[in-house]
């Protein structure tokens, strides 16, 4: 049995009273010393030592807590990661869509600028396909007879003339590009008005043919439509001369290479000139009169 239980109640009261008095004295002394700043260095040292100890003691616990948290977090992170991956993919798609829209907007603005300068009515169309024969520079556009497109209508892009309509369906048309081997357009050199025929040369561009050797044509000269073919209005941009060869004695004409202003390999939207004035002239001409 513990000895405390044998102490009398009077002694207990005395012990408690002594403890209270002792605590009171210590309290008063502490308050006084604190007020006087005597205990401050000791208190600070004690706190510092305690903090160090806390630090040392807490390290293994915090590591353990970190491991536990990581384990708990890992379970949710995996799920979160999946969701985030899906979100990233969706956002990437959205960004690609916005970027595409911005590029398309830029192209359409350029086309709109051209459209404003054109005297005739025109129609915007998208290129949706190309010819099954890979050597043919023929593309399919998403507008046809129901939109008012007819064969031989000129087709333009941001750089100038890109081709002409050769076949129409109800909701599609085929456009022969100016670099097709069968394409021929009546053209003139803008600087000196020398007349020739712009012939397609496949992916390498075009050539200006039937320009005699004495005619002054230089690289950099601008080639425009002459309007002599009764298909293209006069003055539309075709391309720029990139090289002139006159050295071949056996040939009567100069060999002139022309680079089309329109990038025929990358174009996506085109303008179809619905009325060129030339067709209106044909309509207004009295029956039986000679076509000029």
């Amino acid at each position, binding site marked *: 049995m513990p000895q405390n239980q044998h102490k009398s109640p009077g002694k207990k009261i005395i012990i408690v009273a002594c403890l209270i008095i002792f605590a009171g004295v210590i309290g008063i002394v502490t308050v006084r010393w604190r007020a006087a700043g005597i205990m401050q260095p000791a208190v600070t040292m004690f706190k510092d030592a305690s903090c160090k100890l806390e630090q040392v003691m807490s390290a293994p616990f915090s590591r353990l807590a970190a491991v536990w948290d990581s384990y708990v977090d890992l379970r949710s992170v995996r799920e979160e990661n999946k969701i985030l991956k899906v979100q990233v993919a969706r956002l990437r798609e959205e960004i690609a869509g916005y970027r595409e829209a911005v590029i398309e907007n830029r192209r359409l603005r350029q086309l709109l600028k051209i459209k404003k300068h054109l005297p005739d009515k025109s129609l915007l169309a998208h290129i949706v396909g*190309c*010819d099954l*024969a*890979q*050597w043919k520079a*023929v593309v399919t556009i998403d507008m046809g007879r129901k939109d008012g497109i007819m064969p031989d209508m000129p087709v333009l892009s941001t750089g100038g003339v890109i081709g002409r309509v050769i076949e129409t369906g109800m909701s599609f048309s085929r456009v022969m590009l100016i670099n097709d*081997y069968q394409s021929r357009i009546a053209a003139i050199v803008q600087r000196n008005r020398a007349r020739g025929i712009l012939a397609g040369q496949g992916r390498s561009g075009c050539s200006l043919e039937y320009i005699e050797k004495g005619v002054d044509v230089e690289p950099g000269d601008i080639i425009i439509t002459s309007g002599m073919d009764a298909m293209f209005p006069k003055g539309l941009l075709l391309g720029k001369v990139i090289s002139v060869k006159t050295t071949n004695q056996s040939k009567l004409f100069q060999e002139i290479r022309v680079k089309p202003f329109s990038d025929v390999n990358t174009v996506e939207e085109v303008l179809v000139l619905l009325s060129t004035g030339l067709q209106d002239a044909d309509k207004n001409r009295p029956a039986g009169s000679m076509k000029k």
Partner: protein
Amino acid sequence: MTATLCLLMLGYAASVIECSASVFIQVGLMRLDAIPALICWYSLRQNNIPTGIVAITLLGLILSAFSTIPVYAFPVSYTVGFLTMRYIAANMIALSNWQIYLFTGFVSLEIIVLQMAASGNLELVWPWGFLQALIDVATAPFFYWIFNRILTFMEHIITKEATESNG
């Protein structure tokens, strides 16, 4: 019959893909072209020549809708290709795979020459026609593998349906 159905379906699908995705599959005047391989593949499976000619002509007429070259060019060139491959197959015993692929290139060149002549671009046969034929030889194993898989799949479906209708 399944092979003929396969020919028409795959021919149509291939031409749609080629026309719409030419930007990605064309370099210069060369393109990933499945049609010569398809014709040769069909020739090796179709022993009945009249049926084969009718099917190939039909395919040619369908595909001519995708091009501006003269309408007769496709049926004629494909039929010539079919008959050439048939003749080779009938006169050789146990054709090995590499020989088949080589003959595919030869038939491809034949088809290209005829089509280019019909469209007035015969001068492009060298080098573009030859390069296209080389590409067709290189890609023939891949296309033959795909065609075989699709034929097996179609035969499986047809057999299954026939079994179900009988049962």
